[in-house]
């Protein structure tokens, strides 16, 4: 007998049409060709910043350029709300955004930032995955260019001192937050074995979230094991199913990234087990699973804030000399059944 295994989903999630590329001319040619072939697909663009300033007094900053450097790829959907937040702040302050993607390559990121320093950009907002950018951020500061890190700050030593502020999640605290929530709900008990899948176990976000989760679990005598799943949903689900079958003592899942959290409900369903699930970040499916009670809660990084405040703090520094301040964008930002409805309508754009 043929059974359908594809879950019905609501069709509310619309594609986001926005420019996420730098070489627009070349892409326009490719896109025009494709548009002829695929008339059912529409294409639209967007502006890269606005000149309508609404801040008064201080120095004139309208039209000045900020480098908004992202270490990931243009296809990383996590950064969609980050960029939206940055654009909103640029529109308010009249700054011009120059968005660049390093495609997860330190050398590319260093070169892009150095090139921006040479072009004398007014300020730099940058994701710093590791210490490779230490020297570069200090070069920028030496040239009088303010630097704020967002999303991730892996700068160390002198480099850490050159970064004026970090706008992003406190990963360790967030790890403790979700683990403690599940302990408080009675979903994790002393002696329990918790499964902690994550896309890339060696990345700073994974290491620190794991440290936070372990800290909370250790306090009650529970343990947690990581598994690298990668970013592809289908293989991630298959790996998680194998793990759950090989570790029948697993009593809870805390997924340290959105890929394993998105696939955790399907994986537990496939092994016919009801295991409490919690984790980090949001996707439409994660929110639906929270709504239906399959996922207990997720820690939201509030990525829109990361882009918005990174640009806004730089604008205030340039205009009024206000020193940038670090912000933990996940300060108690748990999404659970009580507040998921508000998030659902904003996912992918503002959340």
């Amino acid at each position, binding site marked *: 007998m043929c059974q359908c295994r594809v879950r019905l989903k609501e069709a509310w999630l619309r594609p986001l049409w926005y420019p*996420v590329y730098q070489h627009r001319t070349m892409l*326009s040619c490719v896109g025009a060709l494709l548009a002829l072939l695929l008339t059912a697909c529409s294409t639209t663009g967007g502006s890269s910043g606005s000149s309508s300033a609404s801040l008064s007094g201080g120095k004139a900053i309208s039209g000045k350029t900020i480098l908004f450097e992202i270490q990931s790829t243009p296809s990383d959907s996590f950064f969609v709300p980050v960029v939206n937040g940055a654009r909103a702040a640029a529109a308010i302050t009249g700054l011009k955004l120059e968005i660049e993607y390093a495609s997860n390559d330190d050398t590319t990121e260093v070169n892009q930032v150095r090139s921006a320093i040479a072009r004398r950009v007014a300020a730099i907002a940058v994701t710093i995955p590791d210490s490779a950018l230490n020297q570069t951020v200090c070069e920028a500061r030496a040239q009088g260019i303010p630097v704020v890190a967002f999303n991730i700050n892996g700068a160390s030593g002198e480099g850490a001192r050159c970064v004026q502020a970090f706008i992003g999640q406190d990963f360790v605290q967030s790890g403790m937050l979700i683990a403690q929530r599940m302990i408080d709900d009675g979903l994790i008990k002393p002696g329990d074995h918790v499964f902690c899948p994550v896309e890339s176990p060696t990345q700073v976000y994974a290491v620190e979230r794991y440290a936070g989760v372990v800290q909370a679990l250790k306090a009650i005598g529970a343990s947690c094991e990581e598994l*690298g799943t990668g970013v592809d949903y289908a293989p991630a689900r*298959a*790996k998680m199913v194998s793990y759950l079958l090989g570790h029948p003592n697993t009593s809870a899942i805390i997924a340290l990234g959105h890929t394993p959290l998105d696939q955790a409900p399907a994986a537990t369903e*496939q092994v016919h087990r009801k295991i409490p699930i919690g984790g980090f970040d949001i996707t439409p499916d994660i929110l639906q699973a929270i709504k239906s009670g399959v996922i207990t809660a997720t820690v939201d990084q509030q990525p829109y804030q990361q882009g918005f405040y990174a640009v806004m703090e730089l604008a205030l520094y340039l205009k009024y000399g206000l020193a940038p301040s670090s912000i933990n964008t996940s300060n108690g930002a748990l999404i659970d059944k009580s507040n998921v409805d508000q998030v659902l309508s904003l996912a992918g754009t503002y959340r």
Partner: protein
Amino acid sequence: MEHQHLPMITERTPAGRRADSGRRYRIQQSGLEILILFLLVQVASIIYGVISPDTFAYVSPANIQTALEAIPLLGIPALGVGTLMIAGEFDLSIGANYIFSSIIMAQLAENGLSVWLAALLGLGIGAGIGLLNGVITLRLRIPSFITTLGTMGIWDAATLFIHGASSQPFNPPPEFAAVTAGLFGIIPAEFLWFLALSIVFWALLHQHRLGNHIFAVGGNKYAAEENGVPGNRAKLIAFGLTGACAALAGILAAAQIGNIAPSSATDLPLQAIAACVIGGLTLSGGRGTVLGMALGAALIYWIQDVLLLLGAPGFYLSAFVGVLIIGAAAIYEQLRRRQS
């Protein structure tokens, strides 16, 4: 094992060339070595799974179903990549093709086009991308490695231009879902597609004249063409098949997951090549079997599955898998050398 070498190149008449183009240039391989390796893993796993079902859930329906869902998503692209490798070429753009074709298909379907027609268009786009790789490679006479490295970037960017970076949901109607991601008992539809395609590729490569030409042109293109084999045509068809396979895998994955993330499938090209090498294909072309491609893809999955079921530490899983992939390839190479 019989090794049939290409004849010496001499001046030939057109009629003579036509006659030679029908010669059998396949280096005879049975894929027996990879089959033995595969069966050893299976027999050992099944015996242990039956003896100790509580600690090693290998024969549980959930594990079997998951494996049969996961393997085709690598196995189907591996069939295309393997055919192209036998023809002496590579395609590094299959990951970008997989995403682009499936996102276009899902967008068209979500915008009201018949999902069947959308899927056909997706397959057509995939095949078209493959053919374009072939035309660029053969016309400009540049290595396919370089061509497809370039087109990988172009199709990645095209996905962003057409769709953006957000995930594309895909909610197919039940009849389409049943055919692409349904369950027939505990056998997933994806696996039946993989099985059917493997048979088609076996017939094409090992029984049809086109397969003979693909082996010939991969072994020695110059000699093959001197003997009347239409080398460029064979390569072009192999490129097209590779693109179509990547698109089909993307469509099946979209139906299985209900979502397509533009950032995914970046590892697919290298994984597919690894599956083919484990399956006995050579990077220099002209050798290989469809059985090897299929079992190579299955072994990559099963190595990881067995380790996880045995409770191997998840943090170091990639190291175990890496060592075992090299080990499997080395054992296979030794077996093959001994037999030659």
